[in-house]
């Protein structure tokens, strides 16, 4: 169950892909402590949804979607900070760096979910 603070200002995204992404990342977080499982799966889902909202690698998103995407990225960063797990924080950051650099260079981007699952695996 997702707590209200984690979805504040982005509640509508839950039914627009965030819930599905969260559910998809949960199995990859097996073995983490209970709270951290939730945090890491939600962080991954937020990043995936943010990159989709911002249309990274495609024509630019409209301003409101860009800002909602920024909030998703920032919230993911806060959730990862709460895990106090440096490896996971670095691993996720590198995934975003890679994808945004590729988007800026107009190189094709593979599926975000695959890359973020790899980030979870690398961070553990």
């Amino acid at each position, binding site marked *: 169950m997702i707590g209200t603070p984690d979805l504040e200002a982005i509640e509508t995204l839950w039914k627009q892909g965030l819930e599905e992404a969260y559910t998809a990342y949960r199995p990859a977080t097996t073995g983490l402590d209970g709270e951290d499982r939730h945090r890491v799966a939600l962080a991954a889902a937020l990043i995936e949804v943010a990159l989709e909202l911002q249309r*990274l690698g495609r024509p*630019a998103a409209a301003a409101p979607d860009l800002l909602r995407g920024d909030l998703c990225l920032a919230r993911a*960063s806060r959730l990862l900070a709460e895990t106090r797990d440096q490896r996971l924080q*670095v691993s996720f950051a590198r995934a975003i*760096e890679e994808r*945004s650099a590729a988007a800026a260079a107009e190189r094709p981007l593979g599926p975000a979910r695959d890359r973020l699952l790899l980030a979870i695996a690398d961070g553990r």
Partner: protein
Amino acid sequence: MAGDRIALQSTRPTEFMDLTGRLQRVIEKAGLLNGRVHLQALHTTLGLAMNENEPLLLADLEAMLRRLAPAEATYLHDDFSLRRAVPEDEPANGHAHARNLLLQPSLTLLVEDGELLVGRWQSVFAVELDGPRAREVAIQLEGEFAKGRPDRTRRLIELELERQLHADPEQVGDPMRRLVEAGGKRFRPFLVLLTARLGPDYDPLRAATLAAAVELIHAATLVHDDYVDESPQRRGRPTVAAAEGPARAIAVGDFYFAKATRLIAELGSPDVTSTIAVAMEAICRSQIDDLELRGRYPGDEADYLRVVRGKTAALIAAACVAGAQLSGASAEVVERVRRYGDAVGVAFQMTDDVVDFSDRSGKPMGQDIRERVLSLPLIYASEDEALGGEIQQLLAGPLPDRELRRVVELVGRSGALDRVNREATDLVQAALRELEGVDLDGVKATLAEIAESVVDRSA
């Protein structure tokens, strides 16, 4: 050059009075960052010395002075029948004058980065030789004072930013480099480097990395903001969105959000990571609020403060806190600099708002109003009983030049600018109060100068 006096009251015939702390405060008060401090005893029976402040050692030194120039020995100076024009209150103190030959009448000490340069065991003493008496030590300070930011710190920030941008892929690195090289106050990284000196674990290189990361976060928000605001220029150059297109601007912003997050995580301080992450969330949340508020412009004071606390003050306060946390500063110091940063951040934005109504701001007057940017003077003026109605009516329209000038004129007449200036000054005073009664180890004067400079911009 600056001068001061240290007044002393000795309580014993011979007494070592430790001046080290008071000298540090004189240095902070004068804002001396790098240079020299000269001390001179203004009495012939008061000497100066540097030594260890250890009670038994001081007893040893006092005994040594007694041995080398005993009070019971014969001194011609004490035979008033041989001297001319002896004042009525002249003491028999030949021994004290003799002992003073063993000490120094003056000292010159070095100051680095706002701190008196003393070794671990060194203290600076005024040595009373004929007390108890009221005494005075004259001080002169020379060197580089905190009127502008110290060049060394500024260089450190620039070098670290350059280093961080150097190896990045050119599609993201080049646009960010152009933005960073175009200028900026470097307010936030400067605060990081200052507060990173407040704890026992100060490490200039780690502090520089954190400072650069904080500046990159700020720059990344500007890249996205400029796209949202459709701003054509930033710092006199085309914005990233204008020069590279919005799609690349989004990628550049995302890249540097992520890179900054990684640099901070790699520092391995979970508290610092959390502080910055919470601030980033506050910034992004308030940007959404800001955009939504444009639909009911100019909003009210509560809206304004909520947005400003997130958009501007959050990262300024986080810069102060994160620097202090990185150095292992005490919880009290961390909390003090957080409150300092919050107050300075809000005052900074309020003053920015006032500057928008000045023809000396360097940008077209009233530009913020035209772009529907939240503005406290405009909020106050639009609530004015006599003038508010006309302002609100004008704001509801498209604001061509003539109407914009009229809004600016009405805001000036309403007294709102003075009110915002007063409130910003009050906030700076609150920030300065946070610096009192806590050990800020040589950076207090610079933090105070930064706070005061925030409101000076509107003068």
